[in-house]
């Protein structure tokens, strides 16, 4: 039986993309899988009694070494902020390519804590900073120093000791460009080094909290139980900075979604599912309910989504355990069709993610296809005709063409880059100044404009001639020829409408990172947790691949 890939016009809608969840394809999981046989080491740990100082952690295999250099600094409570406007953080980190020497450490000590206003070199691969969850950190220090383990209920609510507020890579602030490292086999997957940084930061937070507790009360202090460590991750606060990325990297976006869709298609095409595979699937769904019920958020929007998800996952579990037999042919196809009919978008995508769990042989080869050589598709095929272009738009942007951009509500918002922090922002075109400096992120509106222009253009006119007179549409002409080859390269929605929920764009990206516990703090930023339940570095040699569904908090 041949199953078709799902329709981009459905899947690439923002509400659907904002319902995606982590899966076996997620970058933090593929990072763990790739680095499981590397040697992990804590090379330097020079912290004072309060936990301030320098630490270095590394992953090594043969001649290749990646070193996380950590700088923990004292800051005032007033300076601690998750917002991008902050200038001081509890800790700052960089992933160094190789083993840093003393000179490197001295150089980095001056630059890394400055973050965006510091300068890194081609020897550094990623950059980040993080703030303590002060309440959590102090509680853990207090408990450990008194010889007891912390309150699990409190830990469960938060899920981490530190929150990162940005993770930079690919040439930002002088960091190494992607071209320098792209041929390394171990990083043949998107954001792998960013994931490594976050993973090692997690270990630093455990080591630091143990160190501070021990310094406080050397005789009585105990170490944080590794089982508790395992159930702690790293928090992350994410704002709009992430949103333009998925618009600005169309072929990369396509490859992420295409791999997910291909995995689903292949799973639906499996005629006979082995009993151990169906049991693994069911146990992951069952265990995951504990995860859903542990998500804490005050956001009404997210609470509603979680409640719907929980209701539908329970309904699904009842169906799959009591009313469904895996002994039928193509069971996952039948399950998928049931979901389409009976479950909300969030639940459909949630179960689609879990369907991948038993099928490493399907997901493994796809992970290697999730990067993109974007340069290859940059040139516009100018020997094509206006007629070709019009046909592509009609076929690929069907729903976009139905949007009426004469209506103010459909172009109420605009994206811009703030002068203060050079970060993307979203504002009301009719109430705020600056829309004349709008960023080219209103793809739906510009595609519609291009289409309207093509309606009055001779079909046989070549694109080079069309561009001569329509330079303002060049960026969308390029995109239309990209989507012809890459069906999932475009968000099939209006990114400047009055009703846009920008966190849908963030959630899409974060789900591919492997984030858990989406906790929107507004429609423009959210908190998440990464690596919660993941094996600790010393357990990487042999770990349970379904760890994500087995965390206790």
């Amino acid at each position, binding site marked *: 039986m041949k199953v078709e890939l799902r329709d981009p016009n459905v899947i690439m809608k923002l509400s659907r993309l904002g319902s995606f969840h982590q899966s076996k394809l997620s970058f933090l999981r593929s990072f763990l899988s790739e680095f499981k046989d590397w040697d992990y080491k804590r090379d330097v740990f020079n912290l004072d009694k309060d936990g301030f100082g320098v630490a270095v952690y590394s992953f090594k295999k043969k001649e290749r070494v990646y070193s996380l250099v950590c700088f923990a600094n004292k800051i005032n409570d007033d300076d601690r902020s998750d917002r991008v406007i902050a200038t001081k953080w509890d800790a700052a980190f960089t992933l160094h390519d190789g083993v840093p020497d003393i000179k490197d450490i001295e150089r980095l000590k001056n630059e890394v804590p400055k973050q965006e206003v510091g300068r890194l*070199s*081609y020897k550094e691969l990623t950059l980040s900073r993080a703030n303590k969850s002060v309440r959590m950190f102090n509680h853990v220090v207090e408990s450990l120093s008194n010889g007891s383990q912390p309150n699990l209920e409190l830990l469960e609510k938060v899920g981490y000791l530190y929150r990162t507020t940005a993770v930079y890579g*690919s*040439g*930002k*602030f*002088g*960091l*190494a*460009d*992607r*071209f320098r490292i792209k041929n390394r086999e171990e990083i043949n997957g998107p954001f792998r080094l960013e994931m490594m940084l976050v993973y090692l930061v997690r270990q630093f937070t455990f080591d630091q909290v143990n160190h501070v507790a021990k310094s406080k009360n050397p005789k009585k202090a105990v170490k944080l139980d590794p089982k508790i460590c395992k159930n702690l991750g790293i928090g992350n606060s994410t704002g709009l900075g992430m949103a333009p990325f998925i618009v600005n990297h169309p072929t990369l976006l396509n490859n992420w979604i295409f791999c997910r869709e291909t995995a689903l298609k292949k799973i639906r095409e499996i005629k006979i599912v082995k009993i151990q595979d169906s049991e693994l699937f069911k146990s992951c769904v069952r265990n995951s309910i504990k995860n859903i019920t542990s998500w804490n958020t005050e956001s009404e929007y997210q609470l509603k989504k979680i409640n719907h998800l929980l209701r539908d996952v329970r309904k699904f579990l009842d169906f799959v355990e009591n009313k469904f037999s895996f002994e039928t042919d193509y069971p996952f196809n039948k399950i998928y069709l049931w979901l389409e009919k009976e479950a909300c978008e969030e639940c459909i995508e949630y179960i689609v993610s879990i369907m991948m769990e038993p099928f490493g042989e399907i997901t493994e080869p796809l992970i290697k296809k999730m990067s993109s050589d974007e*340069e290859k598709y*940059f*040139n*516009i095929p*100018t*020997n094509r005709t206006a007629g070709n272009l019009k046909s592509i738009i009609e076929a690929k942007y069907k729903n976009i063409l139905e949007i009426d951009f004469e209506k103010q509500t459909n172009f109420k918002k605009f994206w811009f*880059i703030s002068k203060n922090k050079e970060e993307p922002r979203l504002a009301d075109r009719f109430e705020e100044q600056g829309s004349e400096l709008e960023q*080219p992120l209103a793809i739906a509106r510009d595609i519609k404009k291009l289409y309207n222009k093509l309606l009055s253009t001779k079909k046989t006119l070549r*694109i*080079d001639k069309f*561009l*001569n007179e329509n*330079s*303002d*549409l*060049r*960026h*969308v*002409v*390029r995109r239309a020829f990209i989507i012809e080859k890459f069906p999932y390269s475009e968000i099939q929605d209006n990114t400047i409408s009055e009703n846009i929920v920008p966190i849908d764009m963030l959630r899409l990206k974060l789900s591919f990172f492997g984030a858990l516990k989406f906790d929107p703090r507004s429609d423009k930023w959210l908190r998440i947790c990464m690596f919660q339940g993941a094996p600790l570095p010393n357990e990487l040699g042999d770990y349970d691949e379904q760890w994500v569904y087995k965390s206790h908090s």
Partner: protein
Amino acid sequence: MKSLSEIETTSKRASRAMGFSWGVAEEVAKGIRLLEFFGLPGIKNLNQYYKDRDNRNYENSKIIKKNNKPNKLPYCPITLGVSFLDQIKKIEKFKKCTFQKIAYPILFLPFLSRSSEIIGKKLLFQFDKNEFLLNFNVNISSNFIRKKFPSIAKKIEVNFLDNKDSFTGTEWKNLYKLSEDTFVEETDSLKQGAAGAGLTDND
């Protein structure tokens, strides 16, 4: 040191700020990234060109012909470059084309480099006694090393080089003969057993 990613982003934004469309700004940014990657002073010249544009006008060329002469003002290297890139399949047929007065000719180079890749031919770009060989967008070789790029090139020639060998038949033969010394003379038994297919395949 600035990364190529920073160079590309800043060039794109600066080009947009100069009034180019976002699509053209993207082309400029790719070009400046390419120049800096090849070790050529892209940022320096783009910066100077944008400063000059505040006080001077330049001619925008939309259609590239075999011989191109601006009416009065020098050609803008960016609009000329974008037109060249867009029309490359047509221009290729000229085999050679000439231009008079191109401002900041270095900014025209990346468009030629990318054009070379699109048509799969090397391009030779010459002005005065300076030569640049554009090799399929893989590299740019030149006799113009460590000199200051002019703000205007007066007479420019672009030649489309045929894909042909750079060596003589004799030179090839000699080398090939030498390479044969790595081959094993086939005996009858090797002929029978060392190859995959049969000696006759008439079935």
